[in-house]
């Protein structure tokens, strides 16, 4: 049930132009932070490797081509540092996946809040704001460690001011960064799911052996059906026994000595689903067993 609760909390209506609500889930604070840390690690890792390579090139460049060779290396290092710092996020989010490697690993992507296309200027605006959300707070932290003489109160004020930008996503329900706010974007989850087996498959063949009466099938609703579906997927024997006993007791079913719990449960699942879906076709959705 806890899974249902979190889903409901992050689920947002997202209506396609065809008028179907895709019910997207937004990325929560933990996933966002995780994706950012991964990206930061990638950037820093690349920078370290590149710096070491440049240092070697600088040394050999100075030896072979004199000062100009070394200078070229310095120029290239400066430019690469600049591009990585400012355009790593923009470049990846402009691609078809609309996600940086970190976001991809966390199963996230950037999307336009209004359901339209994700525009280049939106990606640009949302990432230019990182200057305010990441680099400014970092430079305030560094300033403190460099010159201890900064007035304490001024430092505290600057720190609080910067912290507002850093922790902005925690103060709104859609977890929007300031960049998302300005760019008109949000970050949604794009999980990949395989088409899993239909649990009615085993049951439907066994249904003939179990002739449940309509009254017996009216004992439960859709919610119980979904619990039963999850249970059948998990395939835990002890739970099968408990649940089979409880259902048999509730519907007054006397089980033969050769019925296994699994057979009984899957047959009941298929029959219950058939009954509820039949009602659904008539426009009646029975949510749970209390719904009459």
């Amino acid at each position, binding site marked *: 049930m806890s899974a249902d609760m979190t889903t409901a909390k992050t689920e947002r209506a997202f209506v396609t132009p065809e008028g179907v609500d895709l019910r997207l889930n937004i990325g929560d604070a933990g996933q966002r932070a995780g994706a950012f840390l991964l990206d930061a690690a990638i950037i820093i890792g690349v920078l370290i490797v590149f710096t070491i390579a440049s240092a070697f090139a600088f040394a050999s460049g100075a030896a072979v081509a004199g000062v100009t060779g070394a*200078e070229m290396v*310095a120029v290239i290092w400066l430019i690469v540092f600049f591009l990585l710092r400012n355009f790593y996020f923009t470049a990846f989010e402009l691609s078809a996946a609309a996600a940086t490697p970190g976001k991809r690993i966390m199963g996230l992507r950037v999307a336009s809040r209004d359901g339209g296309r994700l525009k280049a200027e939106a990606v640009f*605006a949302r990432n230019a*704001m990182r200057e305010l959300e990441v680099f400014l707070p970092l430079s305030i932290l560094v300033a403190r460690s460099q010159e201890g003489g900064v007035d304490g109160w001024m430092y505290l004020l600057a720190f609080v001011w910067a912290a507002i930008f850093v922790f902005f996503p925690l103060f709104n329900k859609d977890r929007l960064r300031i960049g998302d706010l300005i760019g008109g974007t949000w970050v949604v989850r*794009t999980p990949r799911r395989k*088409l899993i087996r239909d649990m009615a498959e085993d049951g439907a063949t066994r249904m003939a052996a179990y002739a449940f009466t309509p009254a017996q099938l009216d004992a439960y609703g859709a919610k119980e059906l979904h619990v039963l579906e999850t249970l059948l997927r998990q395939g835990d024997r002890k739970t099968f026994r408990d649940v089979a006993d409880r259902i048999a007791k509730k519907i007054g079913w006397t089980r033969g000595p050769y019925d296994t719990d699994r057979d009984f449960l899957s047959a009941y699942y298929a029959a219950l689903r058939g009954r509820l879906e039949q009602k659904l076709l008539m426009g009646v959705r029975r949510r749970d067993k209390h719904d009459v």
Partner: protein
Amino acid sequence: MTDMPPSGLLKSQRFRQAREDDWRRLERLMDKAEKGSASKLTDAEILAVPVLYRSTLSALSVARETSLDQGLIDYLETLSARAYFFVYGSRATIQDRMVAFFRTDWPASVRGLWRETLISAALMLLGALVAGWLVMHEPEWFYAFVPADLSGGRDPAASTETLRATLDGADGAQGLSAFAAYLFTHNAQVALLAFALGFALCLPTGLLILYNGATLGAFFALFASRGLGFELGGWLLIHGVTELFAVILAGAAGLRIGWAVAFPGQKRRLDAAVEAGRTAGIAMGGVVVMLMFAGLLEGFGRQLIVDTGLRYAVAAATALIWGLYFYAPRPAVAESIHVR
């Protein structure tokens, strides 16, 4: 048992079996497209995706209304979302986007920012004048406005000869292109910061532009006091027209956002922010382009063109080009903006 078909299958099962192949095909196409670029798909596959997407979407609607197979509904939701992002993702080619950006979007957004641009330019000028006046009267002020790593040895302690030498071409002046690259990244960073700070209700952007102007003014006052003002003008403006204009525009974009957040007017604050972000985002994309131009002019143009008169000529030409590009009236383009 009367409602059971002979196969013993539920209606929702048969529904699923009849369409499963289409869904799996769409899933395979999405896997392929997400792994690389869309160019990995053949033309036939590209054409098939929207059809499969719509049929999957309608299957999702039907399944939500008629099926209680939760696994199926979850699967269709994620598959539809993946296909949605592909179908409605950015399908415009990079060329189309570039053409639209340079032909209409960029000049239009810069023109839309004219009020903020004037304010931003005025702030920079004010900073330059105040700092210049202060340094003229008391050279010690120079150190307050120009950080040591930016001045690169050009400070009141340097001799006039040294100062003159820094204004010449590359010959003999070693480490200059690294210094130019440093200046370029520094200025680009200032531009980005000026934009981002705008969100904090305009004030920090204003201060940053003011301070940037002050640095400039301090430099100018120092060189002018040694009779090198004219030469410095050429040295700075050959790329400075482009670069300072870019910084001013970045400040203007930041001011637009800050103003929209502080005073949204009739609109909702969030909508006002998004709308301002759109204009400002386009302008910022252009600012980066301008800064690259400036970097090239600084790195190459200034080293190759040593004559001060020629430097002024290049500066005037760039000013004219940018001015015409952004602000010259162009009826045809204005029309096409209306249509969009």
